[in-house]
């Protein structure tokens, strides 16, 4: 957080059918619908999040991710980072306050991998869902499905990882936590953080720009991940892989797809990061183990199915 970027704040996801998507993200994943706007976009949050929304669903004829937004500490930081981006040669676009309901102005830019990101400082503080901020209970009752705790990170596929790294690390103050290097020493995967989490955003090399691999939500325990797996079967939801453990980050995980084919993850555990930690390196020769620690083999679908 050394330059004032605080945390992942939101992600806008394109879906083919809004009704099916709402049932998936609320009924199965346990997000809470908080609003809907006059464009028909639906706003959702996970229960432990303090702001009004973290996931925005937009109906479109092609699934994928429109943008991911990071919350910065305050307006002063937003002004500074906007200037830093422009000085670095990044084109920025102004998105006015209230374009997303109850969200302040956003500064949008596209990184060399082809993905759009946003910075913003203000969003309506609604507090944790179902809990008081005074003498709060352990968790709210009335949650559905997997009871996702928070929107955690996204993984994107695209080219130009080195130039993308420069924007995130040199301009926005992210740290490199883990990487995958090919035999020539070229970085083909980068896991970046602004926090103690092992990743707030990650990129894997891919020739085509702007592809979306997954959006991830945090669960508390391995038991919760297994229960998520049960729910995926009970609802006949499309499974990708898991439950298993990653080598990268060491998180315990399961992957599945929303009804429009966007990949979702719920996970628990994983490593932590302090700014004095040096990056962890995986080599492509051991990529199977890096991605799936138990199988130690890649699954083509995980590497190539994208929206």
């Amino acid at each position: 957080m050394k330059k004032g970027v605080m945390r992942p704040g939101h992600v806008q996801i394109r879906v083919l059918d809004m009704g099916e998507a709402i049932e998936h993200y609320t009924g199965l994943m346990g997000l809470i619908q908080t609003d809907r706007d006059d464009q028909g976009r639906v706003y959702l949050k996970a229960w432990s999040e303090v702001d009004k929304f973290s996931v925005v669903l937009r109906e479109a004829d092609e699934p994928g991710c429109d943008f991911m937004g990071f919350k910065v500490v305050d307006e002063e930081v937003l002004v500074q980072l906007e200037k830093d981006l422009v000085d670095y040669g990044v084109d920025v676009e102004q998105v006015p306050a209230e374009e997303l309901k109850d969200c302040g102005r956003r500064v949008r830019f596209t990184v060399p991998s082809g993905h759009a990101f946003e910075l913003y400082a203000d969003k309506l503080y609604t507090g944790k869902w179902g809990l008081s901020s005074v003498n709060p209970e352990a968790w709210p009752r009335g949650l559905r499905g997997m009871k996702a705790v928070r929107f955690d990170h996204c993984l994107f596929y695209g080219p130009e990882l080195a130039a993308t790294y420069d924007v995130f690390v040199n301009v926005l103050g992210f740290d490199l936590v883990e990487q995958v290097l090919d035999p020539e020493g070229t970085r083909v995967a980068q896991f970046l953080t602004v926090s103690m989490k092992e990743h707030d955003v990650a990129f894997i090399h891919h020739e085509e720009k702007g592809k979306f691999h997954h959006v991830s939500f945090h669960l508390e325990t391995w038991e919760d991940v297994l229960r998520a797996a049960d729910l995926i079967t009970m609802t006949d939801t499309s499974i990708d892989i898991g439950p298993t453990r990653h080598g990268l980050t060491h998180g315990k995980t399961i992957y599945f797809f929303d009804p429009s084919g966007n990949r979702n993850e719920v996970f628990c555990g994983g490593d932590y990061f302090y700014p004095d930690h040096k990056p962890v390196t995986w080599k492509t020769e051991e990529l199977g183990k890096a991605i799936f620690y138990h199988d130690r083999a890649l699954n083509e679908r995980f590497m190539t199915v994208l929206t």
Partner: protein
Amino acid sequence: MAGFQVSNRTTGDRFTCQEGQSVLKAMEQRGLKCVPVGCRGGGCGFCKIQVLEGHFECGKMSRRHAPPEAVEKGEVLACRIYPLTDLIIECMPLPERTLAKQTTKLLR
């Protein structure tokens, strides 16, 4: 027997698809792998096939992988088509998959 017969001319596989069931789901239930399985949600384009004969209904598919002009020619995603008659299908060479092979350096 209820359902419709789906024949894959590329691989020679045949399987039964129940009314209201997607071609991909019917294939997976039989344990066959004659069409590549991706997201199963009409989003990724992995299971693109060509329907050579027969009629079917379509669910929602990504316009990028199944644009209307392709759908008209029977180029559809197996996870989002529901047979109305017996079908003869053929696997499609996928540009996306060729591209994916370059993805990775990673995979080699």
